[in-house]
């Protein structure tokens, strides 16, 4: 089924169709889980969290909670019929409810089900809980010191880093701290559990990974997977935060439904959501780089330390992905990358768009900046000098050959179209005459590997029915979180069957329709589900073709699918008529489709192989201004060239690039997670956690999508994944801020700037600069 030759994309694919739910979004008719009309007798579930970061629970008296008005059930670890664990990778370290030991501030201790949400919350406040404090490790630094890890470290190597460093004419070492990030999906975590016969459970959920929710609910309830059905119509945003993090609330809703025999809804309040669910991992990156007089890298050693929180969750793959992207687009000769996975008494961190990749890249771009300042050249020159090249400069630190690199071309193009050189001069001139406001400029590349690095996850299934009226029911394992997956896959199916899009009903992801699915993650949703749905559609088309040929007495080759019509020699019937005929002649009108990503294989023991089918590329120039008296910053202009292959839907892809960029900008600027000395998250609501607002999106924003020649790999219609990569384009914003600060001593010093570059960090960096011509007292 793998089409090696490019497919022309007539019909539906390749067009900028609006999001399939666009109309329902604007009218408010699109139903999110909390909008589903409340079933009679619904109970609302609230989880009460620990008030300590690390402690033994010596007493938990819930009598007053049980006695409170409206309370129908109180659930503790002891009430769990099955297994009290929802660790997604079998590490057995993620309790649903803490059992005697609390490991982060806010960790759920017990749950209350009541007739109203206010009653459930009010009742939870009546608990008496006593603790015996244990020493808490709150930062990555402390964890490194104490050797507190959730998993073993991992190393990637090529060449001889030690020797390379010794031999290099120049050598710089340093550290950058990279902050985490809250997903801040607008729709909080939510699940609605409906109890059925045999103790079965149907769960309507906002999850990127219905199969995981299904298995977790079954395990915790002591059911088999076939007793649990999980349905996901749409999510109000997810960004990785609903890959493993949806399960706990689904499980608690199911436990409450089990305990009360009534439907149960668990809908996390924003503060609880931010306190109780995982975020992007913060990292520490230490680098030691050797390079020649021009700035070409000869050797590098990285020590990464990821802040995993109290449990492993997906930290293994996330930390690995940081390592996989510690080269970004650059050839690293003689390289050694180590990553420690630190255990801290904070919420367990998890997936977030980019999945570790962004942290690796931020470190790499800082290294480039270090080299540039040392050799006295524009960082862009250093970038171009170190890009992957041909033979001899095309193997990654994990021994995969880069075959599809387009960064040199993209960079040359963007440098020209963005007037990089001219603006560099203008900015220098501006900065000379402006003592308070300083401007900065940076161009940074993105090379992002596409595929799950856990190879077995690279599989997908689909189910397509054609009904006798010619209408089509489309289902697959991917979930819709706003990224436009559903419309893209529908476009693929419409294209395949040569029918109009409105013939296709896009249906909720449902574990009873397509089983054993992978999460919709790793940017692979369209690549995999598009292929699976295409396969199902091809099967149906093959059957219809064979039937039509026999029925009309022509060769199969003479059967032609035209838009909503089918021709067979001199006969032509409507698609619906053909379907009806096929049915009457007992042709099966339902088919499944399956896809497994080809070519990939990776040996983690050796840290070598081909973990990715291909890479996605993009480049971005950002210009910023900073206020050296307050540390405030503002993005003034952004130019992006991003490669999407032959786009299935350019409108959707633009949205992904713009939205990803702004999200990345927030990560690196205003979005600061702050814990106090007790391990309490201080930034647990939008009042204190600041994602970009409308005004932060600069007016001068120039975005060009590239890729008409198509992906060189045989992806669906030769498109390229677009979900995650654009987020990392925003590293140019961080680099531009650093550039603006660096202007203070005429670009000799790399500012001591960590991420996110909040006003406070920028001002500190400004104040830490050696006095130079541009610096004011």
């Amino acid at each position, binding site marked *: 089924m793998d089409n090696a030759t490019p497919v022309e994309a007539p019909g539906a694919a390749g067009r*900028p169709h*609006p999001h399939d739910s666009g109309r329902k979004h604007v009218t*408010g008719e699109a139903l999110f889980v909390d909008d589903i009309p409340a079933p009679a007798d619904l109970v609302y579930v609230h989880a009460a969290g620990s008030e300590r970061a690390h402690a033994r629970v010596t007493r938990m008296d819930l009598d007053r909670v049980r006695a409170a008005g409206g309370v129908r059930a109180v659930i503790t670890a002891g009430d769990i019929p099955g297994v009290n664990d929802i660790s997604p990778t079998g590490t057995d370290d993620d309790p649903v409810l803490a059992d005697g030991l609390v490991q982060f501030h806010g960790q759920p201790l017990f749950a209350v089900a009541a007739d109203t949400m206010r009653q459930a919350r009010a009742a939870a406040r009546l608990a008496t809980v006593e603790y015996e404090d244990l020493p808490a490790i709150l930062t990555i630094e402390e964890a490194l010191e104490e050797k507190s890890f959730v998993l073993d470290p991992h190393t990637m190597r090529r060449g001889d880093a030690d020797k390379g460093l010794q031999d290099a004419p120049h050598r710089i070492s340093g550290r950058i701290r990279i902050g985490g990030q809250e997903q801040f999906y607008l729709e909080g975590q939510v699940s609605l559990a409906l109890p059925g016969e045999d103790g079965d459970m149907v769960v309507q959920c906002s999850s990127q990974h219905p199969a995981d929710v299904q298995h977790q609910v079954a395990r915790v309830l002591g059911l088999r997977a076939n007793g649990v059905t999980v349905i996901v119509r749409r999510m109000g945003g997810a960004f990785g935060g609903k890959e493993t993090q949806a399960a706990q609330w689904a499980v608690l809703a199911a436990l409450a439904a089990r305990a009360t025999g009534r439907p149960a809804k668990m809908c996390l309040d924003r503060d609880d959501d931010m306190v109780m669910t995982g975020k992007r991992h913060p990292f520490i990156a230490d680098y030691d780089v050797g390079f020649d007089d021009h700035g070409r890298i000869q050797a590098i050693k990285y020590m990464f330390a990821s802040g995993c929180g109290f449990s492993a969750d997906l930290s293994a793959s996330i930390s690995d992905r940081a390592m996989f992207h510690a080269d970004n687009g650059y050839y690293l000769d003689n390289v050694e990358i180590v990553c420690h996975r630190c255990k801290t008494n904070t919420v367990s961190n998890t997936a977030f768009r980019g999945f570790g990749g962004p942290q690796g890249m931020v470190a790499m771009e800082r290294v480039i900046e270090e080299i540039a300042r040392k050799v006295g050249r524009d960082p862009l020159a250093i970038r171009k000098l170190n890009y992957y090249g041909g033979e001899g400069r095309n193997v990654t630190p994990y021994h995969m050959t880069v075959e599809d690199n387009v960064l040199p071309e993209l960079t040359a193009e963007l440098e020209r179209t963005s007037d990089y050189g001219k603006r560099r001069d203008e900015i220098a001139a501006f900065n000379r005459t402006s003592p308070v406001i300083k401007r900065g400029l940076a161009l940074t590349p993105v090379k992002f590997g596409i595929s799950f690095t856990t190879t077995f996850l690279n599989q997908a299934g689909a189910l397509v029915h054609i009904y006798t009226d010619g209408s089509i029911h489309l289902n697959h394992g991917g979930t819709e979180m706003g990224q436009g997956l559903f419309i893209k896959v529908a476009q693929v199916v419409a294209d395949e069957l040569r029918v109009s899009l409105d013939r296709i009903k896009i249906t909720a992801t449902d574990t009873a329709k397509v089983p054993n699915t992978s999460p919709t993650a790793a940017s692979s949703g369209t690549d995999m589900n598009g292929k699976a749905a295409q396969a199902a559609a091809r099967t149906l088309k093959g059957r219809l073709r064979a039937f039509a040929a026999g029925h009309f007495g022509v060769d199969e080759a003479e059967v032609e699918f035209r838009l909503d019509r089918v021709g067979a020699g001199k006969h032509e019937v409507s698609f619906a008529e053909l379907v009806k005929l096929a049915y009457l002649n007992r042709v099966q009108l339902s088919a499944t489709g399956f896809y497994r990503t080809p070519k990939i294989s990776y040996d983690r023991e050796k840290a070598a192989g081909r973990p990715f089918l291909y890479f996605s590329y993009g480049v971005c120039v950002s210009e910023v201004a900073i206020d050296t008296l307050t540390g405030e910053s503002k993005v003034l202009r952004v130019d992006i060239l991003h490669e999407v292959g032959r786009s299935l839907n350019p409108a959707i892809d633009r949205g992904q690039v713009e939205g990803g960029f702004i999200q990345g900008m927030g990560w690196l600027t205003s979005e600061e997670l702050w814990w106090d000395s007790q391990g309490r998250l201080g930034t647990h609501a939008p009042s204190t956690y600041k994602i*970009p607002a409308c005004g932060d999106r600069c007016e001068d924003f120039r975005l060009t999508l590239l890729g008409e020649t198509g992906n060189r790999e045989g992806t669906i219609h030769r498109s390229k994944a677009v979900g995650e990569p654009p987020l990392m384009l925003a590293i140019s914003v961080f680099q531009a801020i650093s550039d603006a600060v660096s202007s203070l001593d005429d670009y000799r010093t790399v500012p001591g700037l960590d991420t996110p570059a909040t006003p406070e960090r920028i001002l500190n960096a400004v104040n830490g600069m050696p006095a130079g011509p541009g610096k004011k007292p």
Partner: protein
Amino acid sequence: MTGKTARTEGIRFLLGEEARQLEDIDPNTTVLEYLRRVEGLTGTKEGCAEGDCGACTVVVAERSGDDGLTYRTVNACILFIGALDGRQLITVEHLQGAGGGLHPVQRAMVEAHASQCGFCTPGFVMSLFALTMNATDTPGRRRIDDELAGNLCRCTGYGPIIAAARQACKVQACQDQAGQEAGQPPAEARAQTEKRINQRLRRMESPETLHLKGRHGEYFAPKTAAALGEILARRPDATMVAGATDAGLWITKQGRRLDPMVYVGQVAELKEIHLIDEFLVIGAAVTFDQAHQAIAGEYADFGELIRRIGARQVRNQGTIGGNIANGSPIGDSPPALIALGATLVLNRGGGLREMPLEDFFIEYGRQDLNPGEFVQAVRLPRRRGEDGFRCYKVAKRFDQDISAVLGAFNITLENGRVARARICYGGMAGTPQRALACEQAIIGRPWTEETVRAGRRALRRDFTPMTDQRAGAAYRMAVAQNLLTKAHMETTNAEWPTRLVGKREAAHG
């Protein structure tokens, strides 16, 4: 009086075009809860329940004159149900025309691909609806940003929404959908609809206090200062609520109950704003939005500060009286008002007293407000001569963020010397606080860098700021000092850009 003449037949309002009368409802119910749980109207979403994300944005229409209506966006998640009395509530469910056609705003949003996950979308649609109803010309980018600053979108990056805003506001698009369907000229249809609604709302009006007393708690909405005074005298335990942009969060976030609740947002005297002699007198229940122009006309920087308080929805709802009475050390208007020498007028049963605003703030969490007393108005001295007032809000984000530090500088120069100085900071102490040592260090001295250095040093005696999630203590002090430097630069050196937003902006190009 309230006991005898109070109106007890419930909260009366229009939900779209349908009349509602709620007698048996908990006054602590938010409009969002009411919509979603009572009416089953789930188009309006909850994203935060604290006024910060805009997913719950709805429009409240009020009578304007005898024919028209004004449309204001508000955050339904922190607005109490009683605030709807006598008003029309418009939600995303009410925008489509009778024939089911999309409103121009909705159509523009679909066409611009302005929704991805769609969860923020109804809120944006309502903000844009209000914008198209209120805009008299095609809004520029800044206006669009100001209208949308209170709506967060995590998916789109805003570009397509901005495009949709522009599209929807093109004159042709600003048509009344109903009129279009009825084949009438849009302006005429809109005028007719507004007149009709206006009249229906007028019939709901009453000069009497609305009083609810049921199994769910007690609620008063007086219409006059006298009635308010009387209620407070009888029920000193009552909690006053104006815009509820602070008080709403006590319920949604802290699980508190306000009972009895006294809504001051319909007290006529508190809603007035006027010029008396050398003063701008702003009633306690005047919203930020209503006060904005008058204040900006006197002091440009104060106007810019108000533009940056909360966002559109919060400014439509929140009041200056609430900002003061709340007593927060990080309320934005008090430092500016104090620097400008404003006084506060308090009313207790008709007896008035007036005090310098700075004296009202006794210490963190304690204000000079007696039981039964309420804030009536704030008196702001008008500008004399040139507008030398400087005020800077520093936060992590330019829009809808709480200040880490706010510095307000009212410095009068005579012959190059500092003749008078009133300097006040927010975020530096337990209350909004004047920098008296700093003032002393600069008064009488030539307005030079050296004097500024002395003022900077003195600030260390004035303040010992704290560290929290918004900023560290050292940063707060450094910024407080740098803002003095900035005020000096701006008053002595006109040519440099010194700001990233607002005037003296280093605009691109």
